[in-house]
């Protein structure tokens, strides 16, 4: 691992963000819109629901946490897409850069961009709608960690898919979190789902986070063992996504796809 090469990947992304408001604004603008929308929905629900139940930590908090995962995933895939959009594969992959350094560079970029999004969401949700992360207690740390790791796994797997399927496949990648959201129970308990969906839920780390969030909101104790399973699964998925990317990269080098990526296929 060469830290200077890893830093080069991050620096490249920093230059892009620093010199481009069109990249910078979406880091906080869309999440702010999302929080505003759900903030008003929760405020309305609080006004019509029976007193005693607060929708803010249950619903707005869940939206915030799900948006965080989405931002992490998009942080990785957007950083990769910068090389697709600028047709930079030949230049970057003909350098001594190792795949692990490249991926870690994308992840490091995602940490920066997703933290900006998280801070924006938290600031707005706290100031405008009274959401406090303190409501979740110390559990918020493992919650965020599991969501972060899941976002990384999803982002790396998504970039591998884009590498394999060509530039147009980015439209497959953006909706991935939306595809997963019904299974992980962002807004409802997993038990609401039919049994086959529950079986899938148990394989998805964020399910354990949102079950934990709801338990805390209900005043019940959250399942540490459940969260440990979620943590273990997310680590496993990161490893699998890394292997998947490495394998796809190997295929792209073998078939010539890497050198002719814009062709989308070499067959």
């Amino acid at each position, binding site marked *: 691992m060469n830290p200077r090469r890893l830093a080069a990947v991050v620096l490249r992304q920093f230059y892009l963000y620093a010199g481009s408001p069109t990249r910078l604004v979406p880091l906080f603008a869309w999440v702010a819109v999302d929080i505003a929308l759900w903030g008003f929905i929760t405020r309305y629900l609080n006004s019509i629901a029976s007193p005693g139940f607060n929708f803010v930590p249950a619903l707005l908090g869940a939206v915030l946490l799900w948006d965080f995962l989405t931002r992490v995933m998009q942080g990785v895939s957007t950083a990769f897409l910068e090389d697709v959009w600028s047709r930079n594969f030949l230049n970057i992959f003909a350098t001594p850069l190792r795949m692990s350094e490249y991926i870690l560079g994308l992840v490091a970029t995602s940490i920066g961009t997703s933290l900006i999004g998280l801070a924006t969401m938290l600031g707005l949700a706290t100031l405008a709608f009274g959401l406090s992360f303190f409501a979740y207690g110390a559990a918020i740390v493992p919650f965020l960690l599991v969501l972060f790791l899941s976002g990384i796994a999803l982002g790396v797997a998504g970039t591998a898919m884009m590498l394999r399927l060509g530039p147009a496949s980015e439209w497959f990648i953006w909706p991935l979190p939306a595809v997963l959201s019904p299974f992980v129970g962002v807004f409802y308990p997993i038990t609401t789902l039919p049994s086959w969906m529950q079986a899938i839920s148990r394989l998805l780390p964020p399910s354990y986070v949102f079950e934990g969030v709801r338990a805390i909101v209900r005043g019940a104790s959250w399942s540490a063992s459940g969260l440990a399973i979620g943590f273990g699964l997310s680590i496993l998925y990161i490893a699998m996504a890394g292997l998947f990317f490495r394998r796809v990269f190997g295929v792209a*080098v*073998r078939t010539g796809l890497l050198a002719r990526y814009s062709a989308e296929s070499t067959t």
Partner: protein
Amino acid sequence: MRNLRKAYRDMVAVDGISFAVPPGEIVGLLGPNGAGKTTTVNMILGVLEPGEGAITIDGIDLLKRRSAALSCTNFAAVYAALPGNLTVEQNLRVFGMLYSVPSLSDRIDALVEQFDLKRFRGTRSGVLSSGEQTRLSLAKALLNRPKLLLLDEPTASIDPAIARTIRATIRSFAQENQSAVLWTSHNMYEVEEVCHRVFFLSHGRILLEGDPRLLPREHGAANLEDLFVQVANEQLHDGIVR
């Protein structure tokens, strides 16, 4: 390069070629379009895996130690412009870090001076003229003083005066650093001026090899361009017969 072969299904792009580029020598890789030049360059750059054969750069096996081997190389190609959304300086800094160039700021200063890019330092490379972009690609290619420099039609989009300066720059770079240079070009005048040796590729095979100043006479051609046309016509004829 030893017995290098690459096939895409039934189409053989490179068919068992072997050659070496010794330190300080500039070798021209010539041939008509589709002869296998870019496929060969891509294999040496590590972005395309050979079906068979081995590539050794400065004693390092590319297939076994990719990162170490690629740290001794660099390239400029007319079809691989640097990211247009970064400035000249940013591009050189990012690629300098990727190649772990020591005293990077000093090296960038020297290269922007050498390639007359000083006034464009803060300019996004996407708005540079094609000639200026080529000079930037060449500056990037020399960042790490590579032991093996690959140039795929490096002067294709620049005017004759700058092309002459660039040829002189590459020649003195190869001599001073004892770097090997593999140069592809369709400009036979340029090849004659710059290259110590050339290989003619046709159908992925090396057809001819020798001194570009002597080869035409040895094969009954008036000059290198005529010889190129002969080789190209043979490839065309072979293609029709096939």
